[in-house]
């Protein structure tokens, strides 16, 4: 309800981590999806890579630089496997 507005909403910080298979690694899922797209008539697709998307909610007021460092560490050590995957980290508010 519009009447429930109680002043400023706190800034919602989010970290978005996109994990994709490394180019050198076999990606049978991507290949299969690509073939399916072709079968469905979607032309012009030259490659499909299936990865993962992780969204992390951060406490309001979190220091952006500190979060960046900590989440890079987490993404490298745990959320992705650097042997087979690349990741991209983005912090938004």
């Amino acid at each position, binding site marked *: 309800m519009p009447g429930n507005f109680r002043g400023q909403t706190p800034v919602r910080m989010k970290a978005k981590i996109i994990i994709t*298979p490394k180019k*050198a*690694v*076999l990606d*049978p*899922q991507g290949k*299969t999806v690509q073939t399916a797209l072709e079968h469905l008539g979607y032309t012009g697709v030259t490659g499909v890579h299936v990865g993962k998307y992780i969204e992390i909610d951060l406490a309001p007021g979190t220091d952006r630089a500190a979060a960046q460092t900590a989440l890079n560490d987490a993404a490298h050590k*745990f*959320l992705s*496997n650097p*042997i*087979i995957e690349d990741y991209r980290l983005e912090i938004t508010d």
Partner: protein
Amino acid sequence: MNFSVLQFPASNCDQDAVHAVRLLGHNARLLWHKENSLGDADAVIVPGGFSYGDYLRCGAIARFSPVMQAVKQFADHGGLVLGICNGFQVLTEAGLLPGALIRNRDLQFHCENIFLKTATPDSPFTNKIPAGKILRVPIAHGEGCYFADEETLAKLKAGNQILWQYCDASGNLTDTANPNGALQNIAGICNERRNVAGLMPHPERACELALGSDDGKWIFESLFAALENRTGGAGGVVHGEPDVKVSRRNTSPLRM
């Protein structure tokens, strides 16, 4: 010899591993993932299954469990560790073995008997396998395609760390005999120090003829022989931690 078989939520080959070790005349007990000591273990088996639901990546979460910290210490001290199937995935995620296991190239879960060629008898996991013997053992996995970058692969070869490769019934390393697309038909490897090994096939499910094959026993017999050599020879078995704690048994709340 005393074997500790780890038990994570959703391990499902833990009982099979215990059964195989006992059948072959040695002691085995289950060790819950929250334990932080291996007690009096002479060797550790990280069993197959779907630890922590295979969430994120196979083995990615199990790697951080308390018991795995004890396993790392145990391995650092030279203790023998064998990872089977999901156990292999856990050991690669933990950095105890190089490379990674990715989705089978045909995206299918493979549950079938395969043939294995032993690449070298020079390891605690292969020393008793008769020369030229092709092992017939089952596989059951969806993510068993071994991958490593070229440099790692070259190191594995140079160091004689490839232990088992998928082959046909006559021992040829063909592409059709490769069930999952693993590089170089790799089914199992060991670390540089040769005290930690992992393989995707299930030797514990092939230790008695009633199950169709008893070829898997050679891998366990190799382990027993290696352990006996150690205790008979240079100063006994090294333990990861000095403080021996009593471990819970059969306490898994989850079973698949």
